[in-house]
């Protein structure tokens, strides 16, 4: 198991090195191949975990003296989320092979080595982060993803994109101060970096460690008050947005928060309360910011902010001893990753085919490009949480767990009602755009659209399927 895990984490880095050294024409092939290998590795890891009867294992890997610096933890959460981020990495690199070509109507440009190498490093870092058993390992990969995101967001090197990239880097780096603090504090108090040591801390120390982790999580997962980098980061190439801002980078925050909660038997109540309140505020803010958006990607960015708030809501509620809320939160990470990637990639496909992603210019998607129309539909339904799409199966347990907690914590009630209203309202808003863009006669932009390459179609198809079935996988895996 150790070998598989190590290979899964290191293969992308090796691939990135190879790409850096080989000529440009091999870059995309190498990237896709190594991402596929990593996905297979992660799948294998998950299967052997299943084969061992789902017994959690921690594998210490690298120590300095007696202090464990880095190790793997293999349990139901790490394998599930790890598989999601790596497999989506593979799908995105496959999609990029079609997207980053001279045929692209919005950005005619062949993907360079730099792009594919950074993407692979990102995949490797995500694999490492999900599997890491120490807070130092998390910090390490947290920072690597930050550095890569800077390179990828600023990929087109326009002044605006570079500014956005710098903003993303700096804001998430400020957030990382929280994680630095948490790691140092944990080490200072327990003499180890292992996440499981959080359980040994006194309540006051826990407050500091959790506070630091929550702060870091807010930054990476674009929650108030550290959200401002995400909408601007839409300057990135669309596959990058799909990967970073739907599937992986924004999930780093919620994942480390979830991991910390898992590692500690009790969490200070203050953390739960702050988490719930901030999640609700961010949710409402995210929704309000939907309203003026015309650019499909910016709309999706705010939708991501709001959706991540749901995850924070679920995880924060789980600190009041609700196993169900925790599972809902983790399943939400998994489901949202696929659904939101689909949404972003539909936006990317529209840019590729029509040269625009401004919603008012798009009409009659279903007629001219049925796949995109269906994809849009599925993604919108899944995000809004309409059954039988995956969003429903994570939102429903969330609310169920929340309302069952209100008996003990009455103050949760109004917040949950706000969340429910937000859920309905965002469904209505997405429905409105669906009605305007998908049915009807094609607008000139869509009428003159060029066909999509096979790789992009394939990826969209897989994601449509996953948006339907991922919740089943998650639910089965977690129980």
């Amino acid at each position, binding site marked *: 198991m150790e070998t598989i895990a190590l290979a899964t984490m290191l293969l992308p880095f090796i691939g990135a090195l190879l790409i*850096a050294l080989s000529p440009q024409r091999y870059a995309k092939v190498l990237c896709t191949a190594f991402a596929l290998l990593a996905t297979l590795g992660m799948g294998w890891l998950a299967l052997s975990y299943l084969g061992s009867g789902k017994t959690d294992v921690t594998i210490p890997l*690298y*120590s*300095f*003296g*007696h*202090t464990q610096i880095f190790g793997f933890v293999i349990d139901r959460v790490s394998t599930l989320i790890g598989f999601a981020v790596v497999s989506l990495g593979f799908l995105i690199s496959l999609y990029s092979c079609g997207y980053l070509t001279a045929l692209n109507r919005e950005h005619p440009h062949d993907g360079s080595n*730099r792009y594919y190498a950074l993407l692979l490093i990102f995949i490797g870092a995500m694999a490492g982060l999900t599997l890491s058993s120490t807070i*130092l390992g998390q*910090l*390490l*990969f947290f*920072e*690597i993803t*930050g*550095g890569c995101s*800077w390179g990828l967001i*600023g990929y087109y*090197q326009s002044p605006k994109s*570079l500014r956005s*990239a*710098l903003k993303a*880097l*700096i804001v998430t*780096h*400020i957030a990382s*101060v929280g994680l*630095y*603090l948490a*790691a*140092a*504090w944990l*080490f*200072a108090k327990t003499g180890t970096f292992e996440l499981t040591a959080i359980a040994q801390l006194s309540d006051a120390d826990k407050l500091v460690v959790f506070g630091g982790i929550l702060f870091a999580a807010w930054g990476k997962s674009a929650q108030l008050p550290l959200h401002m980098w995400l909408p601007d980061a839409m300057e990135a190439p669309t596959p990058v947005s799909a990967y970073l801002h739907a599937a992986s980078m924004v999930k780093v925050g919620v994942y480390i928060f979830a991991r910390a909660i898992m590692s500690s038997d009790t969490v200070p109540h203050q953390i739960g309360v702050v988490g719930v309140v901030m999640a609700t505020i961010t949710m409402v803010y995210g929704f309000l910011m939907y309203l003026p958006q015309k650019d499909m990607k910016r709309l999706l960015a705010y939708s991501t902010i709001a959706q991540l708030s749901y995850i924070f809501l679920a995880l924060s509620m789980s600190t009041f001893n609700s196993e169900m809320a925790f599972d809902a939160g983790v399943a939400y990470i998994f489901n949202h990753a696929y659904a939101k990637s689909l949404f972003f990639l539909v936006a990317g496909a529209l840019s590729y085919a029509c040269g625009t992603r401004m919603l008012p210019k798009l009409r009659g998607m279903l007629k001219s490009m049925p796949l995109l129309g269906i994809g849009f539909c599925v993604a919108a339904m899944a995000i809004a949480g309409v059954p039988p799409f995956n969003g429903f199966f994570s939102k429903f347990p969330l609310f169920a767990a929340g309302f069952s907690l209100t008996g003990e914590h009455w103050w949760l009630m109004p917040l949950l009602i706000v969340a429910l209203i937000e859920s309905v309202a965002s469904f209505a808003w997405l429905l409105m755009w669906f009605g305007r863009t998908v049915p009807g006669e094609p607008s000139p932009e869509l009428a003159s659209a060029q066909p999509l390459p096979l790789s992009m179609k394939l990826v969209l198809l897989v994601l449509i399927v996953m948006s339907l079935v991922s919740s089943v996988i998650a639910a089965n895996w977690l129980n």
Partner: protein
Amino acid sequence: MDTFTLFIILLAIPLLTALAAFTCQLLGTPRAVLTAVHSVGSTLLLLVSLFAVWTVYQQGELLAGHNWLHLDGLSSLFLAILGVIGFITGIYSIGYMNHELEEGEVSLKSLGTYYGFFHLFLFTMLLVITSNNLILMWAAIEATTLSSAFLVGLYGQQSSLEAAWKYIIICTVGVAFGLYGTVLVYANAANVMPNPGDAIFWSEVLKHASLLDSSLMHLAFIFVLIGFGTKTGLFPMHAWLPDAHSEAPSPTSALLSAVLLNCALLVIIRYAILISAAIGPEFPQGLLLVFGLLSVAVAAFLILVQRDMKRLLAYSSVENMGLIAVALGIGGPLGIFAAMLHTLNHSLGKTLLFCGSGNVLLKYGTRDMNAVKGLLRVAPLSGALFAGGALALGGMPPFNLFLSEFMTVTAGIRAGHLWLVLLLLALLTIVLAGLVRMIVMSVLGKQPDNVSKGELGWQTTAPLAVLMVLMVLMGTHIPQPLQQLLKQATTIVLNGDQAGISELHALEQQLPGATNGAEKTALNTVLNTATNTASHSSAQEMSRE
């Protein structure tokens, strides 16, 4: 080989190389001969210094020449840095200076001057590292200024002469403060020690540190910190540093930043050990903390607004030296270990960046970041290495500086300096922003029309690649011997702090079978020496009472 011979060979290599280079210059020999002399000198110095480090590693402390010369775990760390960085910048110099020669920026005569002073500079720094004589230590620091001033003013332009003048005046004056501090310590020691003749040797004074006069030692440390802190580039005495670093030829900038600043730092550490033993660590640590934090803070903001690439890097040196001072000020085994590690890491990183900026200078003919654009397209390898190095310097993992910065943070938390750590992290974020801004402005973007594409040859890119490999290695897995070396250095700085040593000892005991016999003996020797020294001095304290 006996110890004295080793020291003589070590010191003779750069001195003879310098003399040979000056002779070549006088005789007017062709470039090839000069380059050969230089390469042989650099390579030999690397080999012998590493051999010396290895000897210390195996045998423990070395003393020779009637106590005048001295190498212990602490100074051998600095010697290792000097050997490696001296060699790398030496190789880089060949490519760089040949290019300058072909461009007509320097004459063959100044090339001889350059190589001569290059090795003379190395010799003076070597003298600082190996000296056990307090006055010689001061004189050697003074000599580093004198020998490198000509390197700074090599181009002979108005701005470089101005930089050289500022450098020489500020540093001589600063170091005069150092002399005053030295005189105070020496004079006091000579008065109280049973054998006044020994009062000039650091290792001897340390044994009798508890006899020293408290108020004089307070005064002495202030003078020492101001004096040698000038040379280390601590705020507010750093004014010479950006000028000298930016005007010097790039390999010299690297040498100044990566070795010279460390040498001055070594002297400060030596005095901090001595004076801590005399008056307790609170006062030296407090001063180091204040000066260090101020340096980091001021440099962070200045990094953010620089237009000149090399000035930016120079301020980054101020920032890093400040960080090391902060780590030393935090103290404890972890803080000191972090400081030692950061010294090494910063040297590697800064050499990479200064050499990289040399490539930029050769390619574009300017250091103005508003004019330098698209390095990644002009010279992809240099560009990628330069960008990687800058990210590393900003504390990004998996590079080495992340590790030492994180250790500093952990040490700070452990010592209970929560607010200090938060402030430090905020400042480091500003530094990162400044470095990323540099990448954005210069490495990325469109290339200007008047710059030709292509690298400049292996001599100017291979050193960068080697450094990058070393940095990743140091960031992911510190080799075992190096860990031991760092621990030895830490033990010496801890000097008799029983709690700290046992803490370090505990860390050592826990190593899972990684230490083999030889290493363990070496470390134990050091530990025992340190412990003995400690009990010795405490016994004396008792007898005085």
